[in-house]
């Protein structure tokens, strides 16, 4: 978290080139799926710590193994955090400009953010076309936002109950 992403860009690029994954989607997907942002680890840690200890004790007495306690009791209770991290990850990935710019070389693989940037250079003065293109790019974000809002509020309601 301390290092700007740019610092590790070159070694990371070399690694993916060595793996033969340049100009595929793998360099964009793998880091998020395997590690995610360290910040999310903190978010989850706080969410799990906020669960009352008695809940996991009750689960142990009710015959749950540690895994089952995690899966059936703890994880459902941090759902608001799951949704939050999901939304943040989606937005960060969707809006990412830097990583696609580095790893995606052929035009058929380019993501929408790269396409929008290219579009901007070509149709800079055609405001109505820029508006249309931008609208297409943000449409999924709006959709996710509205879908997640329901889950998010539902999650807060559960979490706010007196344990």
């Amino acid at each position, binding site marked *: 978290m301390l290092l700007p992403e740019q610092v590790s860009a070159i070694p990371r690029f070399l690694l993916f080139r060595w793996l033969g994954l340049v100009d595929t989607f793998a360099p964009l997907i793998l880091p998020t799926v395997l590690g995610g942002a360290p910040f999310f680890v903190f978010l989850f840690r706080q969410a799990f710590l906020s669960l009352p200890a*008695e809940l996991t004790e*009750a689960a*142990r*007495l*009710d015959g749950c193994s540690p895994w089952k306690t995690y899966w059936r009791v703890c994880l459902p209770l941090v759902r608001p955090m799951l949704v939050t991290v999901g939304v943040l990850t989606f937005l960060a990935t969707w809006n990412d400009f830097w990583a696609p710019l580095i790893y995606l070389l052929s035009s058929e693989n380019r993501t929408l953010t790269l396409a929008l940037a290219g579009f901007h250079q070509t149709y800079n003065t055609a405001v109505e076309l820029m508006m249309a293109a931008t609208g297409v790019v943000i449409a999924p974000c709006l959709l996710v936002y509205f879908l997640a809002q329901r889950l998010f509020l539902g999650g807060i*309601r559960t979490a706010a109950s007196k*344990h």
Partner: protein
Amino acid sequence: MATLSLRGVSKRYPGGAEVLSAIDLEVFAGEFVVLVGPSGCGKSTLLRIVAGLVEASAGEVWIDGARVDDREPGERDVAMVFQNYALYPHMSVRRNLGFPLRNAGVSKAETEARVRRVAESLGLSELLDRKPAQLSGGQMQRVAVGRAIVREPKVFLFDEPLSNLDAQLREDLRSELKALHRRLGITTLYVTHDQAEAMTLGSRIVVLDGGEVLQSGAPLEVYARPSSRFVAGFIGAPAMNLLEGRAEGGVFRLGPLEIRGAPVSGPVILGIRPEEVVLEKDAGLELAIREVEALGNRTLLTCPIEGQSLRLTLPGGASSAVGTTISVAFRARDLHWFDASNGERLGVGRGDQSNF
């Protein structure tokens, strides 16, 4: 029905003080034992050791003739009700009640039947599809009790289950718990710091302080013959008066107070319960009233005596005013004597018939 026995159970946290020292406790089959003591006396730790949530530093825990120290909490066949209920907030009442059964591999149909039966017996049938957040405190505690009895465990553990409820509800649930125990007859260990619960619920109370068992016995027996100064002050509300004075030749003296029948000479503590101090004209001990607390059904008076204070209870309607004087007497059979140095009970506590 199962017997629960603790043999020499100790708990010492690394680098910390000893929380429990060599506790021996036998809870007989079907018995209801109340562990009572001030906060930090180790009573909850002891309960958690039985449950398997805390590991004892030494000693053995036996349930129904089997040593269970190294068993997981879920394998000990005990159920526990927590102070804050510990219901699973994301599950309906039905799933909360069925959770321990499903974990134990009981079939869906059987689980449903047993959940229904327990819900009916606790008056929860209407609430089965609600989430804990939609329940009142009393209902949540009932669900927590239901989750414990649905498994038909060998031993029930209660960790101050009523202390988060308001007074009226606490009384209702107290009698419900008592009725439940009478009906099911499951061996029960109940932790509380509440006087009324300790006195009314258990067939036996065990007073803990500083990680040691101070006294164990039937509630009224402990009330009538506290084994130490601590127990005397702890059991009974308002607390017993404990007056520190000196005895010389069998006569206890504290300022104007003189009582025959002290079992030893030297510094000694005289104990008398506020409700056993009697008003008697010209009895010899005149005291000024410093404080009057009218509780409706009784009135509590506090009178200073040689830098200490004597409290006494009078019937509700008694008229007393701060600053006026009353004349009191102690009956010999109500006196308790305690050693001033170690707080141990002295002798049988019989004084003379006329004390002044």
